Structure formats: structure tokens, C-alpha cells
């Protein structure tokens, strides 16, 4: 089970590294297309700005999972507690986990559920009936990055604890 969680987390990390690279490449290409189209064909296609902007949001939110996994997020104050395996270190880590959950879980919940707890009437449900201006596709495909990124962060968080348990189990055979 623990190994499965770690495997899923690592695989997702590898996939998202490639996806975010792709998002930046698409963003770069559409902006370049916009420049070229303006001066060469004198009328840029209307969709380039929207595609580039949505790719930026995808880059940023997928990138947030990368920085979470690699622990490169900006910290206001480094933990004042000793590192694990000191018990205070575990406590600090648990509280840190709590903070992440308090922030992420409501976002994820309200992507799927509305205020009365009805499934399918959440953020995604409401967006699925709206159409993106110049692209003519459902906004669902664009805003889906929000729950995807939040879900991946939660999986990385689980893997963080799973890996930890695994190491101590290996260190203390027979337990």
C-alpha cells in the first residue's frame, strides 16, 4: 500500500514535469505566432492570447505541484523545531501537513460539490456549461487544472508520510 502510494506520487511527478514543459512550450509558440502573425499576415488569430494565458495558468498550477514535491516553496520562517526523528520534528511535520490539508481540501471539495453537498454542482459542474470565448470549447477543460493540481499535491503529501513510514519500518526490522 505504502509502496503503491509512493509509486503513484513519483509517476505523477514525472508526468507533470513533462506536462509543464509542454505547457511552457505551447505558451512560447502561441505568443511567437501572435508576433509573427501581426507583422507578416497583419491580423493575428484571435485565439492566441487566450491559449497563451490558459497555458500560463496550467504552467503555474502544475508547477506548484513540482515545487511542493521538491520542497522548494517559499518559507517565511524555517521550522524552529529539531528535525525528525525527534518527536518535536514529527509534531512540526504533522502541523505542517494539517495546514496543507486545511488549505487544499476545501478547494478540492468545492470543485465537485456545491454548498448543499450536491455532487456535480460544484465549480467544475458550473463551468462545464460555459464556453471559453474564442476557443469554443467548454471551460471545464481549462479550469480542470485546479482540481488536478490540488489532488496531486494531496497525493504527494500522502507519499511523504508513506515514504517516512517505510524507511522506519526498514530501519527497525520485525516491527
Amino acid at each position: 500500500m505504502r509502496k503503491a502510494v509512493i509509486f503513484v506520487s513519483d509517476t505523477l511527478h514525472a508526468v507533470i514535469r513533462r506536462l509543464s514543459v509542454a505547457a511552457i512550450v505551447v505558451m512560447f509558440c502561441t505568443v511567437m505566432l501572435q508576433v509573427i502573425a501581426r507583422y507578416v499576415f497583419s491580423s493575428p488569430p484571435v485565439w492566441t492570447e487566450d491559449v497563451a494565458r490558459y497555458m500560463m495558468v496550467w504552467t503555474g498550477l502544475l508547477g506548484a505541484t513540482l515545487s511542493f514535491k521538491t520542497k522548494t516553496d517559499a518559507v517565511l520562517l524555517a521550522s524552529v523545531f529539531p528535525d525528525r526523528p525527534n518527536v518535536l520534528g514529527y509534531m512540526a511535520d504533522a502541523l505542517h501537513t494539517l495546514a496543507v490539508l486545511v488549505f487544499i481540501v476545501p478547494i478540492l471539495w468545492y470543485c465537485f460539490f456545491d454548498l448543499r453537498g450536491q455532487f456535480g454542482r460544484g465549480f467544475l459542474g458550473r463551468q462545464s456549461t460555459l464556453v471559453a470565448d474564442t476557443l469554443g470549447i467548454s471551460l471545464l477543460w481549462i479550469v480542470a487544472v485546479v482540481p488536478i493540481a490540488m489532488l496531486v499535491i494531496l497525493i504527494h503529501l500522502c507519499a511523504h508520510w508513506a515514504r517516512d513510514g517505510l524507511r522506519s519500518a526498514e530501519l527497525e526490522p520485525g516491527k
Partner: protein
Amino acid sequence: EVKVALDGPPNLATSGTYNWIQGFSKVMSENGMDVREMPRGSIGNEDEIFDQLSTGLLEMSQSDVRAVARIDPYIYGLRLPYLFDDAAHMDRMLEAGDFFERVNENLAQQDVVLLAIVPIGPASGFITTEAAIRTPEDIAKLRMRALDDAQLAMYEAWGSSGVIVSWSEIMTALQTGVVDGYMNSPFVPMSFGQTDVVRNFSDAKVIIPMRAVLASRLWYDSLSDDERAVVTEAVKAGDKANRIWLDEASGSALEQLEELGVTVQRLTTEELTAFREGVRSVYETGVVSAEDVASWTSLADEMR
């Protein structure tokens, strides 16, 4: 407490929507329903406000017409160039047709109700840096800023080219010559302090710029019959306050521009006809379906 998201600065002199809300609030508070004005931006942008109406977290808003058009493009008929002769003509059409019933039927899927259509100022003209525009040939020489596909189609109909530029970059675009001008109400360059840069206004009266007053269906349906009657009464009062302001503003807007040193082109009926005929082809671009265009135009002729 009825929270209303405002769409701009609370200025009675220049804002049509703020005049509307003042007329609306007066009737509401006289009947014991308090209105709280949420300043523009304080609870988010257009999309966020619409989402909060959907979920019932916000009672009312003054929204972009686009918010409605994303569910039913029928409302874009209001922005067909030269469909209306003036605001009174538009009011007669909205009164006579089944506009509100039709739109609200479709808005129901997002739990939102359309209460009113509010002109934000006198009819739109061309606001340009250098060129004075009197004919479609004048505008054909320029590169104009377009808000969206629909405006782009209009410029192309007049033989001009458009560039989509976001509003936050428009000052830079005007100053550096990326665009030569844009189309909007005469109050816009004044309230955004652009009169040092844009030197010309051409009163082409293309469309009536407007906003949509939306309400949350959850809130609207939760009202008692008496309360809903008060809201209906207040909406009428808001419409009235707005049209009184609009009449005064239409009379003085051009003079105010001239006082700020902007050259104003007042077009003759023949010149307006040239613009009207030139842009006729956008009725067939499909932004609004052919069927809807037909119903809008026949209604317009009926009410003329």
C-alpha cells in the same frame, strides 16, 4: 441585506449604472430591504461575481453582457450595430418582445436571473488619437482596438483592421501607436483620464453600451411575494433614474469632451447612413444566429 457588486466608481455624474443603483436602493430601503454596495473588484472579477450569483453567495450584480452571452448569445443582438435609433427605441423593444422571458429561461441553468438592461452612457463612437473620422473610408486607414470577435467583424466590414488589446494595455497601445483608437461611449476617455492622448471623438452612434443587472435565483426565489414586488418596483425606479441621467448626459457629454480639448465630429444623417450601410454585413457573421438576427430586426422595425 442585499449585496450588489458595482461595476465601476460610484460617480453620479459619469456612471449610468451608479445612477441605476441609487434609484433602485432608494425604493428598496424605503421598504425595509437594505442594499450594500460592494466596490468594484472587492469580491472579484466578472467571472467570480457570476459564480457567486450562481451559488447564492451574492444577491445582485451589474455584469458584463458577455456573462449572459456565454450561456445564450441571443443577448448579443442588443449589440448589433445601428439596431436601435436610441435608448427609448431599445426600451420599447425590451418591453414589447419576450426578451427577458427567453433569456431567463436559459439563465436558469446557472441559477441566475436577468433583471434589467442598463445603458452606461450615450451611444458609442470612435475615439482616436490623430485622425478625425467622418466616413467609413476614414476608418479604413486605421488600425482599431477591438474588444472581441464581434467588434473585429465590424471593423472589417468598414474595411479597417482591428487588433484585440486588453483594456489594461490600451493606454500603452494608444501612446505607442499599436492602435489608432477604439470604439466606446464618450464618457470613457474622460473617466479614464485619456483626454491628453485621444484627441478626437466621432459621434457615430454605433451601439448603446450597456450592462446587465443580474440576480441570484436562489435569493430571488427565496423572497416572499411582497418582497419580490418591492424588487420589481425598485428595478423600475432604477431604470427610470438611469434614463433621466442618460438624457441629461447625452445632451452634455460632447460639450464636456470639447471643454477638455477633444475635437468632436457631429455626423449628419447621410454620414451616419454610410456607416450603417457599411457595417450591415456583420449581421451575417454568425455571432448571433441568423434566426435571432431576423427576430431582432423585425422587432426593431415594428417598434421604430
